[in-house]
Each structure stands twice: as C-alpha cells, then as structure tokens.
C-alpha cells in the first residue's frame, strides 16, 4: 500500500503523505493558511475555525489543522471567497466577544488575533463588542489573567493538561458564558497551579501574561537573546527578553532542543536575581578582613597563585572541586578536566549529586 496520495491544492497537483493534515501539506508547499487555536506543540482541536478550507464534496468547510488527507484525488481550496468569508466572520465574532482594545493590552504587537484582523483586512467592527465581565485574576506575582481578553482557543487547556499534565484548568460553563476555569473556578493562587507558565507561553492574545513584565516594555522594544537556563542541568533554552539592557521577562525558546518552549516556574519566573542589587558584579578580594573590588585578571591571578601554592605545599589531593547544577554541561566538563589534568586530583563533585 502506497503511503502517498495525489491531491490537488489550490489548483496544484501534488503528492501528499497519507494521514498528514491539510495544514501540514500546505505549510510544506509554502501555502499560507492562517491559524489561531492551532499550535505545533499541542494536540489538535480544530476549534477556532480560522484555518477552514474547502474540500470538494465535503458538506461544509473543514478545519485544515485536523483534517487528514486520506483520499486519492482530494481537491482542496484554501483561498476561496467562501473560505475567506468564514475566516473573516470567525475573527469578527471574536473581536466582538471580549475586551479587545489593543491600546490597553499588554500583548499589543504580539497578538495573533491582532495579526489576523490585519491579515483578513477587517477595517471596522460590525458587531457591538461585549465584555464578558469576568473579574481579573491578579492573585499571584507570576501569571496575570484577564479572561475578558480570552478567545477560548483552548491552547492553555491543552498545554496544561496534555503537555505539562498538571490538569489545573479546563473549559467551564456553556454557550456565551464559557470560560477557562480552575477547579471550582478559583484564582490561580487558590488552585493547584504550579506556575510553570506553559499557559502563558501558548496564549495567543493578552489574556495570560507574565505579571511582573506588565508595562515593562512593548514587544517591538524587546530584544530576545537566547541562552540556557541557569537553574539546572536540563539545559532548557530560554529567551531573555531585554529592554535597554534589562531582562524584563523570560520566555521558553520554542526551538530549544530539550524543552521546545516549556519551562518550569524557576526558569520562567525566577529571573530577578539577574539585576538584584545584592548580586556580585565584580570579583572581590579580602584583604585585612575587608573585601575590596578587584579586576578579573587580578582575581584570577590570585586564585591561580594560591592554588599552585597549596598544590606545591600539600599535594594535589588537598584540593577538591565542587561545581554547580546551574552550570552547563560544557562548563562542568571543563571543571573536572581542570581538576584532573591541571590540579591532578580526582576530588571532583557536583551539587546535584548531594
């Protein structure tokens, strides 16, 4: 049985893998289909109906993100008037069902709803906007939750339940009153939330934002610097979000090999030490019971000199090396290499082993 089928998409006859979704095929071919509830890391929902396309002989439009290509000769159209009308209506309706005032929104400039409104050329709202009137959840310093901006795409629910498997949130209530709730509809602080921030990471709008980063800088002022999280040896790739030389928040790097964007509460929210006034910024040398600031060269020279002296006076095994879990693998490697090859001892250990 062949694993490929021939299908027609926007008039092009192409080979598709059996079982891949229309969206996957289109993306591979460079055909743009807008999406909203879809997220590459999350299980599929097919809920927002923004990615709908026309499939010949199907009764209605289908969500390209979930619709599998199985049939030989399938004819798909991604850009017809009918498709555009449905996409536009879906976005217009979302726009009318919450507080979507970009001027007042933290996510202005970093919002998938905003992008879609622009992409679909929606010039003015046709439906009166109505705020659902949910109270704001400012219960904790990590996650700021304004469900009036929520578009109920369900990404956070899938991220919480199926990626992090914390199972803190789900859909609650019905119809127009539907909202994302914790158990018994409590605040995050009163829930079983562990504040991994996965929900914030995947939220396409301004409903879930990093609380401490509010008003710290607009997306276009932010420079992202990828680095490795310093908390443990997992080696999650993080993006430092920097405004004028200050780290204002940390986001998971979706291209990170080990974490694919996911982080834990420390990696995502424990960054205040970076600019903490108590943090050592230069080496210190203690002279006469008093620390004084020194240069790196000066400090390293002093360390080398003292280590050399101890080794000469008492032998290499009087020296031990303990390295930190907050170092990278490479740094740890260098550390033990240095101890063994330069100092000449096997007294090497690591804090994570304790």
């Amino acid at each position, binding site marked *: 049985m062949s694993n490929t089928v021939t299908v027609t998409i926007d008039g092009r006859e192409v080979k598709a893998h059996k079982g891949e979704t229309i969206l996957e095929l289109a993306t591979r071919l460079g055909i743009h289909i807008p999406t909203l509830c879809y997220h590459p890391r999350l299980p599929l929902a097919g809920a927002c109906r923004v990615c709908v396309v026309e499939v010949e002989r199907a009764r209605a*439009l289908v969500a390209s993100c979930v619709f599998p290509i199985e049939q030989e000769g399938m004819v798909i159209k991604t850009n017809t008037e009918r498709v555009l009308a449905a996409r536009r*209506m879906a976005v217009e*309706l979302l726009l009318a069902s919450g507080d979507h005032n970009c001027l007042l929104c933290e996510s202005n400039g970093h919002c998938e709803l905003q992008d879609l409104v622009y992409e679909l050329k929606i010039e003015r709202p046709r439906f009166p906007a109505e705020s659902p009137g949910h109270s704001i959840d400012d219960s904790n310093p990590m996650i700021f939750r304004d469900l009036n901006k929520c578009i109920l795409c369900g990404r956070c629910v899938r991220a919480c339940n199926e990626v992090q498997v914390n199972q803190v949130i789900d*859909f609650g209530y*019905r119809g127009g009153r539907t909202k994302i709730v914790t158990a018994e509809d409590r605040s995050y602080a009163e829930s079983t939330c562990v504040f991994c921030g996965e929900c914030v990471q995947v939220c396409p709008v301004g409903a879930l934002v990093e609380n401490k980063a509010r008003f710290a800088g607009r997306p276009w002022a932010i420079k992202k610097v990828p680095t490795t999280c310093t908390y443990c040896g997992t080696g999650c790739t993080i993006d430092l979000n920097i405004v004028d030389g200050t780290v204002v928040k940390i986001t998971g790097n979706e291209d990170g090999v080990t974490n694919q964007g996911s982080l834990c509460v420390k990696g995502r929210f424990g960054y205040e030490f970076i600019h903490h006034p108590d943090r050592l910024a230069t080496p210190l040398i203690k002279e006469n019971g008093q620390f004084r600031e020194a240069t790196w060269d000066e400090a390293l020279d002093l360390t080398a000199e003292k280590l050399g002296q101890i080794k000469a006076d008492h032998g290499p095994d009087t020296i031990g090396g303990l390295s930190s879990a907050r170092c990278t693998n490479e740094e740890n490697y260098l550390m033990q290499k240095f101890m063994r090859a330069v100092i000449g001892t096997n007294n090497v250990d690591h804090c994570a082993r304790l």
Partner: protein
Amino acid sequence: MKIFRSHILVCGGTGCHSSGSAEVIKAFAFEVEKRELKDEVQIVETGCNGFCALGPIVVVYPEGIIYMQVAPEDAAEIIEEHILKGRPVERLLYREPVTEEVIPYMNDIPFFGLQELRVLHNRGLIDAERIDEYIARDGYQGAAKALLEMTPEGIIEEVKKSGLRGRGGGGFPTGMKWQFASQSMGEVKYVLCNADEGDPGAFMDRSVLEADPHAVLEGMLIAAKAIGAHQGYIYCRAEYPLAVHRLNIAINQAREYGLLGDDIFGSGFSFDLEVYQGAGAFVCGEETALMASIEGRRGMPRPRPPFPAHQGLWRRPTVLNNVESYANIPQIIVQGGDWYASIGTETSKGTKVFALTGDVNNIGLVEVPMGTTIGTIIFDIGGGIPKGKRFKAAQLGGPSGGCIPVQHLNTPTDYEAITQIGAIMGSGGLIVMDEDTCMVDVARFFMDFCQDESCGKCVPCRVGTKKMLDILTDICEGRGKEGDIELLEEMAAVIKDSALCGLGQTAPNPVLSTIRYFRDEYEAHIRDKRCPASVCSALFTSPCQNTCPVEMDVPAYIALIRANRLDDAYKVLLKTNPFPSICGRVCDHQCQGKCRRGQLDEPIAIKHLKRYITDNASRPTVESIPVTRRERIAVVGGGPAGLTAARDLARRGYSVTVFEELPHLGGMLRYGIPEYRLPRAVLEREIDDIRALGVQFRTNTRVGKDIPFKDIRKEYAALYLAVGAHQSQRLRIDGEDLKGVYGGVEFLRQINLGNGAEVGKRVAVVGGGNSAIDAARSALRKGAQEVVLLYRRTRQDMPAQSDEVAAAEHEGVTIHFLVAPLEVIGVKGRVVGVRCQRMRLGAFDASGRRRPEPIEGSEFVLDVDMVIAAIGQVPDVSFLPKDIPVTKWNTIEVKGNGNGRTQTPAEGIFAGGDAVTGPATVIWAIAAGKEAADEIDAAIRQRNDEPPFQRPEEERIDIPQVIDEEVQEQPQARMLELEGSERVGSFAEVELGYTEEEALRESLRCLRCDMEL
C-alpha cells in the same frame, strides 16, 4: 398462565403519570379488591399510550374501549358499569373535537386508526417492567435468530435491505454504519445508544424507553453481534428518571434470563450493557461529545474524521444509534428487511415516530408510515388546531430544524422532501403553531436555546449564535434596523458552513426557514415596529389594539365603560374610527381573536362593548371645517374607504367631493350588509357627521358615464378610487344565465335599493362567505320557504363568521357541506333545479384547507327555483382609463411599499379598499381610507415643498388605571337577540345591544394588557 376476563390497562407514561395515573391505578386496584374481582380483572400499568393530551388514559380489553382523562373517582363507575354490567361509561369516552361524535373504540379514533405501529407495537399493551410480557409479544426472537442463525454479515445485509436510516435525525443508513464498524480492526468495540433526547417538545425516545425498554436492549444486542462488540452503554439523560428506572429493571431482568451476559442463548456470544446518565447537556446528543462524556470528560465534540466506526469510545470502533433506530431492529430481523422496506417512500423506508405537540388538539405520540404528509399528521391524526384558530407553521426537527408553512402541508415525511423545504426530519419533534405565533419570536426562542446549549468550543457556534440572538432580540423589542435580515442570512450561511459540529451547523436553520417563509413578518417588526401576531409585547400596548387595522384603543374605552364615562369613551372611539356605531355591529372583530382573556375563558366582547358606547353616549355635534387649502380632491365611491378618506382630508382643510353611482352613500355598508345587521338609521347618522364636516356628495353619478374621467382629473388635484368590489364572480357553469340566477351582491343590492327583488320559494345559495350568509338570511326574510346553502368545503373552512353561520342555521337555512353545483337546470328559460356533485377533501391547498375533489357518481339534483351565486366579488373597473393598470384579478394596481401603498402608477391618482385588495372587511376599508388620506396629503405637500402635516394636539382623555387583583373565570356576557319567529319576514335588527348591567359586567372582564405595573 392465568386467564382474566378483562384487562384494565392504565397508561403509566410520564405524561399520564403527571396527570395522576398512579392514583387511578390505586383506585382501580381498590375497587377490584372490594368487589372481589381479583381473579377476573387484571390491572396493568403500561407505557405511554400516545394520546398524552387526554390522559390519564385507560383502555379496557377485550373490547378495546378507551377512556380519557380518567380520575381516581371514575374507577368505581367504570368497574360497576362497564366491567360488571357491560355498559361503557359514555361521559369518559372520546369526543371528536369538530363533530362532537362519541367514539368508544380506540382504533376507530382517527388518532389511532391512521397510525402504523412498528416501533410502538407494544405501546399501551404490556407492562414495561415485566420481561415476560415482552417475550410473550415475540420479544427476543430477533436476538435469538441473530445470535443462533445469522452471521454478522447476514445481519448487516438484512438491516441494509430494510433501508432503515438513523432516527436520531442524521438519517444515515444504519446498515452502512454497522458495516463500517464491523470492518474496523480491533478486539474491543462498543455499541452505544443515544437516549439523550433534548429537543424542546420531543418525547419519542422517552416514550419508547418507558413503554418498551427491552426492544432497545434487543436491538443493541443484535447490533453487538453484527459488529463484534461485547459491551454497550445507553446514554440516557438524567431528566428521564422513569426511563432510567425501567431500563435498569429491564437490564437486570435480561441478565437474569441470560439475555445479557456471557454465552447468550448458548451461542458463545457475550454482551452486557449499562446505563450512563447524562447531566443534561444538549450537545451530548452529538456523538463525539456523547463519547467524551462517557469517558468522563467535558461533553465537547471533536472534529471528524476519524469517525466513531473507526475510532469512537476510548478510540475503539463504536456504533452509536438512537433509541428509535434500535427499537426497529428486532422486527427487521424477525420479519426481514423486505418487510420493513415495503412501506415508506423511495429513500425513506418504514415508519417514523413523531412527538406531536404545540397548538394541536391531539397532543401525543404518533407513528406513521414514512411518506405520510405533514398535513395528515396535524389535521387527521392530530385533530387540527384548537379553538378554531388557523394553522401557521409546524416546526420539525427542533432547534436544528425548520418550519413548515401552510403551503407545504402536502410534504411527505421523507428525509429528502423535508430537507428540500428547509426543515429536517430530525428526531421527530413536531411542534404545531397557530396564527397567534410570531415567527420572529420562534426563531429567537430556538436561537436562545442553541446559544445557551453551545458547548463553547468553536467560534461560529459560541459567539455566532449569541450575536444572532442579540439581533433577533433587538428585532423583537423594536430595535431592529434595515440590513438586519441580510446580516442574519449572512451569519447563518457562515455558521452552517464553518461550525465544528451538528449543533452549530444546524443552529441557524430556524432563522433561515422563518426568514424564507415569513420575511414579511421580520419586515413588519423592523420597519413598522409591529408584531402582526401580537406576541412581541415590547411593540404594542395590547394585543387587541395591535390587531385592529386602525389600532383602536380598546383597553381605554373598555376602562371608560367601567368608569361609566361613556361620552369620553365615544371620543376615544372617534379618534381612530369614523364609523364606531357601524363597527360595533358588523366589524369582523379580529381583535377578539387575539384577546388574552380568551386563553382563560372567553375573549372580551369588544364589538358589543363598542356598540354599547355608541348606543348610549351623547353624540357631540359636528362642526364644519373651513376649507384652508386650494387643492380640491375627488373621491370615487361612497363606501367606507372613500368616506373615511374624505373625512380625514376634509379635516386637513381640503375641499372634498365624493362621487357615488348609486342613490345613497355607504357602499357595501348599505348595499351589501342587510338591514337586520346594520339599521339604516345608524349608518345615516355616521355619514351625516361626515357631511357636516363640509364634504360634498354627488350621488347617482357614475364617473366615466355621467361625468368623464378626464374632466375630474383636470379639476381635482388628486383622485381617490375607492369603488369597492360590487360584481359577483360567476360560477362558470351551464345555465348561469337563466332567469332566477342572481349574483350574491346583485341580489343584496336589489333588496337594499328597495326594488322589491323577486325571491323564489326554494332558494339555493352557493358559497361559504359572509355574503352568502347575508344572501341566504335575506332570502328567508323576503319570503323564501326554503333556503339551502351549498358549500364545497366543510364547516371549519367557511370564511363566514361562525356566529353569522350559527344565526343563519338558527333562522332555518340548511347548509350542505362538500357539495358543488355543476349545472343550473332550466325549463323555458327559468330555473327549476340545480345539479350538484358531492365532494371529498383531497390534498391541502395554499390556504391550508383541504382542496375539495369531486366524488364520481355522486351527482344529485336539488329542486330550486332560484340560485344565488355568492362565491366572491370583483371590482367593476370598466370606467378606468388605460393609464391606470389593473391586476389579473381585476383589482386596481398600486405601487409597492416604497412609494406608499395607495398610489397608482398614474400621477395624482390613488386607490384603496376592496377595489385594490379584493373583497375584505369594513375595518380594512376604513384603514385603507385613512392611509390614502395620509398619502394624498403628503404627496400634495411634497409637490408644493411644504413641511409634512402636523397632527393637531388631541384632547387628552384620562384613562383610569384600575385592575382587579384576582381574576375569576366568567364567560362573555351574551347579547340578547330577536326571537327566531320575530325575525321572519322582518329586517329588524337581530342583536339588541347590551344593557348597562351587561356592559359593566363585560367591561370588568378586561385584563388591561395595556397597563404596565
């Protein structure tokens, strides 16, 4: 087994239960015990009998006699009279609502007789809580056959042959569904039953589960064998406690008998079942949501594919069918697919169960062969519409379906035919709606339901339905605006096309179908801020005022009667109506049909109260109004439309001249309506008031003959053509030109001209409208010895007012229904008889009445010497010049809404009343006259660049705001009438008017819908 002499079957369905059947059973048990009949009479509590409207239902076998609305205290009488003495208790028997005929035997009642019971073949016959009774009626024979003699392929083949399609609403072929699941790979498969019936007004599944739960179990067992499943679930809504209770009993009994569990019938096949109770979410009727719910997750649908046949419950191949589909299966297996497919239509086989509810006489559960028309279900089985109201539409398919209007009553119950007219078969909820239903409000109701039940997952359904509801609510509350209908249509199209599951995709259907058939009603709400059905209460003060074509302030003048301020009441009447004394006698009072008091006992006698005011108030003298405008206006025709227009224009300062061909003014009021209904003095008095304003009348002047049309056109700034419809329609049969054949209006005109019309001894009047009745009653008064009225339809189809019909019969007119004349027979040029043919009722016509069809060989001759043809009137438009076009019905053409409703295509020429609409009523003619005056005045002012007319400040009349806290049932005060003997040969007024005491009593009945608390 014990043999009993009699069985008393008491319905224990939810409907009868709530009307008290449990007490009835106790009462019967007590009586049987007391009379020591325990060995002779058995009492059985059955499932739903179907005739829920008249429960509690009791059927006595072996006779098959059915009793309705049985109370516990009736038990003794039934035992004593029926069981012991063999005399059925007549007062508890069924009475046909129209003919009042008493029908003792269940199967003689059309409700039962026209049904074909397959799914419900055990209904009302067995005790649902005893498996033995099910087995005794061949229960589990199908399962035995399937398990012991058939292969899975064989079972699927039989089901495919039957043509059975999913009865839950989707209509997907059941056999195909089973085949897919059977071919799906996997050790573990599931059989599910969807018993989450949630459509408003639907109770088919509940009744089947309550009356015959084993049929569902057996159907599922057969399905399990067909696909290779060993576990099943029945997803039943928790709001059906009796169904859940009986299902659990049935499952336990089946397990005890080895019909569920391991090695059933020793076949080696195992299958077991449990009931899973749904928590009441409508969306859980959607298959993927239902499965999510059984899995313990929130009931939200997921996109398909994969389909449940491949990946269903816990991602295993699953078959999900509805209760009714499963209940069909055992008989298909026992009797064969061909047997099942022997009834129905090309694509829809077998029978369908409908829950018939709403504005219909026989509310209940009916099962009919596919292909039975909607009209048959509503009118023959359902017994038609209560209180003589008109049918408006039926909602089929619940909130996912559409409405079926009167012009589609002949639509067969067939999946494709129903889809074609914009509804869906759905699960079978059939809600009948009468004329008092607002279709915008209906659309709003169903949209409210859908948006409330939306699971919230996809945007089109969650937000789209809410926004559509907002628009519909705005329309119902008077905030509708141009473009709303188009926006609703656009949203509906997109939501249908892009919502995730069936709930969203079908949610716009009620809106689309009501717009399709009742767009004018939407427009009335949006443009005129009117709710024609008097439902959307934000748009009117009281239903009576809203219904009146001239919006008479009914609650106000009734309140003034109560306060004994008749002079003020009279002023209130005159504000909107120049002819209140006339309308108090001859108006067709549509207001009374909408009176809310009618829902309690009887409507207020609005017409009689109006007459009471005009009979008793002192009449203010009318002063002439000075002519302040230079434009002169001509009105052609001195009937109610012309006179009203003349009055209103004169009051605005125009000089108005009315041209009337006949010697006297009044039009149909004088020459059509007989004097015994409208005394001439009353008519003259109100015409005199218009004369007193300064309007000039030129009688005996036919425009186009006595005075050329072009002369009038030149002399007057505007012309209003209100010439009425004074020519009788011809019968178009042989002998119509014989001496002694008259047209109805011509006959009445001769009498009213006082020309001493010659009346025969035996008169046949043809027709069923008010003119026919007037002609018949007048003929009697003019000395006819016998008057026969021939009408080709039935009594309830007569356009004449029912009280007029009753009066005619009281006076001695004989009415032959379902009879049509074929030929007038003459000898020497004179009528000697009329050859007639009997008719029977055929399919429904566009008016919702059954079309009469001739019965071959039923001809007969009536000996008469006079025939009056009163089957309708048309205007005489022969005087019109060529540039004023007429329609194909010979009425004068006016432009559509945009340019006013009275302007003809010819500049400065307006038309209205019967001449435009065809024969209508006095009050509509008055309304037309008022409208014409407005539009003529507006046109003149526009031409002159003048500002629009400002209505002068009206005298403020303080209306008492008094209502009664307690309302007690009390019928209408009857009006005294002339004795029958005094009416013969006399044209004296028949109705004698209310006394002060009667009027006061009647006025106290008003519920004052106009008041806001």
